């Protein structure tokens, strides 16, 4: 939470993770989308035999390679950071989280890295068919890589398929399919990869339009635009659809995040959706949170429909979730804290009985941990026992609110943008519409922004939890000094920034050089 930022180990660890994740996410979505775009291009080459398509494929593949390398470089840090900076978390969830990560290594990373070599070095060495297959396998491998890590992230938003093992003080997986096919995981995966498709389409269109403005590479540019605009339309529509599902899932599974991103202080029936609005800083409310100004543009009942498929449905606000609402059967935060404390005390007694080798009391307490009521009414609030102050349970409203609204606004813009581009190129009018070419050029950074703030919403909105309701972020960090993390934060910040600049410079140079000498 930015507003109470203080230079402690938790904040520096969060800052470092955010830094790495944000940098990593500058490169990954392009890899996800561009891998499919080059696979489409190469398919057209193999189908038509037109050498022009081969040239186009190789041009975009070069940019793909430069971007891929730096994505890999930032990715390895993320994986190891779970251990170096979040060692408690690694133990508490390792039994669930480790499995998808290992599977990702075995299935996806090797698929990607094996066939990327064929894709780059195999042009003159393997058959056309094998080369095309390799390109497709790189695209599939890259996107499956995203599946496993998103399954893990989805689990942090909505823990499923596990139980708590008091003997090991950790969560253990009991159903792999529940973890893999949790609705949050599936939707998160689809939403995230389609955001990559949108980003890559806008990237390809933007650069191609720059060529048209410069009156260069005309054939490459127009063919690329046509392909990318079709891919863009489909992906952006799908992105909106999965975004809608994502909001509904959030309303059910993470109501606090949902309320924060809508700036909803008081819950209500027939809740309207705010399309455009501003927040006022913290008010004298309990808890003190930012709220939306009365001056705003909203669509009546839409929020209720969006979240519960019912215009009359009650959408709980921050106040309900903190103070409770008997009528709506919402527990207050302080009630959750006391239930969490019961769970914690029970666990403590069990551990003591074990240490004292008191088998009888151990057995009787151990039984409690398999009782449905205990698990559903008490243990599910275990994480709340770490909190004294209920205000800490509210994430940053401004960050969540503005991230969400900007992301949705941009999402709608992308649909319109891709349709405009497609119509212009289809009617062969794109070269004359210079405003559209400029617009395309300036659209390149927008999906990057939308995609990054999507992650800001996902991660900041979940705070103060690292695992929703089970483990607070403060309890998850390693036992290291803030100074150490501060040092590595700056190390990474400098290194990544330098590498990012190098990457941008190289890519710009490659674009200026164009397709003829694309590789040199």
């Amino acid at each position: 939470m930015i507003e109470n930022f203080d230079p402690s180990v938790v904040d520096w660890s969060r800052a470092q993770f955010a830094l790495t994740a944000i940098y990593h996410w500058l490169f990954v979505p392009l890899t996800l989308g561009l891998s499919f775009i080059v696979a489409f291009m190469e398919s057209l080459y193999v189908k038509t035999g037109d050498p022009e398509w081969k040239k186009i494929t190789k041009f975009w593949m070069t940019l793909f390679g430069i971007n891929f390398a730096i994505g890999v470089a930032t990715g390895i840090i993320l994986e190891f950071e779970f251990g170096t900076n979040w060692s408690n978390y690694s133990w508490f969830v390792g039994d669930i989280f480790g499995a998808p990560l290992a599977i990702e290594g075995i299935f996806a990373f090797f698929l990607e890295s094996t066939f990327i070599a064929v894709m780059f070095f195999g042009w003159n060495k393997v058959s056309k068919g094998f080369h095309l297959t390799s390109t497709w396998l790189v695209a599939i491998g890259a996107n499956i890589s995203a599946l496993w890590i998103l399954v893990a992230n989805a689990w942090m938003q909505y823990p499923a398929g596990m139980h708590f093992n008091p003997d090991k003080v950790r969560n253990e997986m009991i159903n792999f399919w529940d973890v893999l096919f949790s609705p949050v995981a599936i939707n998160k995966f689809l939403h995230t990869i389609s955001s990559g498709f949108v980003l890559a389409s806008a990237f390809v269109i933007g650069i191609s339009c720059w060529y048209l403005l410069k009156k260069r590479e005309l054939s490459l540019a127009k063919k690329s635009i046509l392909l990318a605009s079709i891919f863009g339309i489909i992906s952006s529509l799908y992105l909106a659809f999965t975004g809608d599902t994502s909001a509904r899932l959030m309303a059910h599974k993470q109501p606090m995040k949902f309320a924060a991103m809508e700036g909803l202080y008081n819950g209500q029936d027939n809740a309207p959706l705010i399309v455009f609005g501003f927040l006022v800083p913290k008010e004298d409310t309990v808890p003190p949170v930012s709220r939306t100004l009365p001056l705003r543009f909203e669509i009546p009942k839409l929020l209720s429909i969006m979240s519960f498929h019912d215009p009359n449905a009650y959408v709980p606000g921050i106040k309900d979730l903190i103070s409770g609402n008997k009528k709506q059967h919402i527990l207050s935060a302080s009630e959750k804290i006391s239930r969490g404390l019961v769970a914690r005390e029970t666990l403590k007694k069990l551990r003591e009985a074990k240490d004292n080798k008191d088998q009888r009391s151990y057995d009787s307490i151990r039984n409690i941990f398999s009782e449905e009521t205990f698990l559903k009414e008490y243990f599910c609030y275990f994480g709340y026992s770490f909190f004294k102050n209920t205000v800490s349970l509210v994430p940053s409203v401004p960050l969540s609110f503005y991230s969400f609204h900007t992301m949705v606004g941009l999402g709608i813009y992308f649909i319109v943008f891709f349709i405009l581009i497609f119509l212009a190129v289809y009617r062969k009018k794109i070269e004359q519409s210079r405003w559209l070419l400029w617009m395309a050029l300036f659209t390149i950074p927008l999906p990057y922004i939308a995609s990054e703030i999507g992650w800001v919403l996902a991660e900041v909105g979940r705070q103060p939890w690292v695992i929703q309701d089970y483990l607070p972020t403060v309890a998850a960090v390693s036992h290291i000094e803030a100074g150490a993390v501060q040092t590595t934060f700056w190390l990474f910040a400098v290194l990544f920034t330098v590498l990012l600049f190098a990457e941008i410079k190289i890519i710009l140079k490659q674009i200026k050089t164009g397709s003829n000498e694309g590789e040199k």
Partner: protein
Amino acid sequence: MITAISIDLLQHYWWFLISLLGGILVFLLFVQGGQTLIYSLGKTENERTMLVNSLGRKWEFTFTTLVTFGGAVFASFPLFYSTSFGGAYWVWIAILLCFVIQAVAYEFRSKPNNLLGAGTYETFLFINGTLGTFLLGVAVATLFTGANFTVNLDQLISNNVLSITRRVPNDYAITRWNSSAHGLEALLDIRNIILGLAVLFLARVQGILYFMNTIDHPAIYSKAKKQLLYNAIPFVLFFVVFLLILVLKSGYTFIPDTHQVTIEPYKYLHNLIQMPVTLVLLLVGVILVLYGIFISLMKETSSGIWFSGTGTILTVTMLFLITAYNNTAYYFSYSDIQSTLTLQNSSSSYYTLKVMSYVSLFIPVVLAYIIYSWRSINNKKIDENELKEDTHLY
């Protein structure tokens, strides 16, 4: 079906997979070793380009294997991940940085307008090849020499004062490192240094043998042969000393019935004797490595890498196995002996290990497609003509 299998077997199976991954990883460090020799073997720009490109086609495998190695450790023995990574912070961060700079170096090195210049990216490759391999060796050596940590699972719930004041460092942490050097103290133990140097020189030896195998260029070949001798001698020296230390040193035994850990003199020697298969395979591995080096020095051959590569995988895998098999505590704590990590107390649950074991059945498929695609693009040696034709140059 796997359902009939005990957790004990699953733990041993996963330690075997980790050992095997470790073996493959050390073999693949030939990329890193090769990176340290670009200037000693390549005197002209053309020669250096050839050397870099022959490695550039393989670096991702080493990198991916390292990532998978980390993932497999996390998945099967999360308490080790939590303890070692969170505790020996500086060693792991240094290793990570060495690999981050490698990942961009190949793709950026020869591209125009690359901000830092080709020389910087070559320096990145050199740092990755020297410091990266050395530190990996040091980190692995701590499986034999121990580390300075405590583990207390109750720490997560031990706090009576229920307030989230921002403690520095985290009071809830279940694993603690008792040295403020956070892992760098491993560099003070000469035994760790020796294994680190052995890995570094082994990587260089393998790098040379790889060049001899892949590059068709007489000048590089003859220089490689000379360098092979200079690197093989220190490698053999450091490795033999490490083996001697190993068979003479004591280790920690885990007693399954009492869950206690006790010290046992000559533990690793006992392991080799009590598990004769590991002893035999270890010796076969060592002989293969030496044979690979020997024939490359004595004959006009390019196949040394196959012998030394197979030998490396065997040797390293066996070394990993004797750190944990035969009830050995694989990561012992010299500040609190009962915090010591064993296969039994640090593994994932039965269910998770079982699920992952099903997944691991696909490993042969992965190996098959890797071999198939390597062969398809590597069926002929790299020479100067090929570099002129190639469209994706590093």
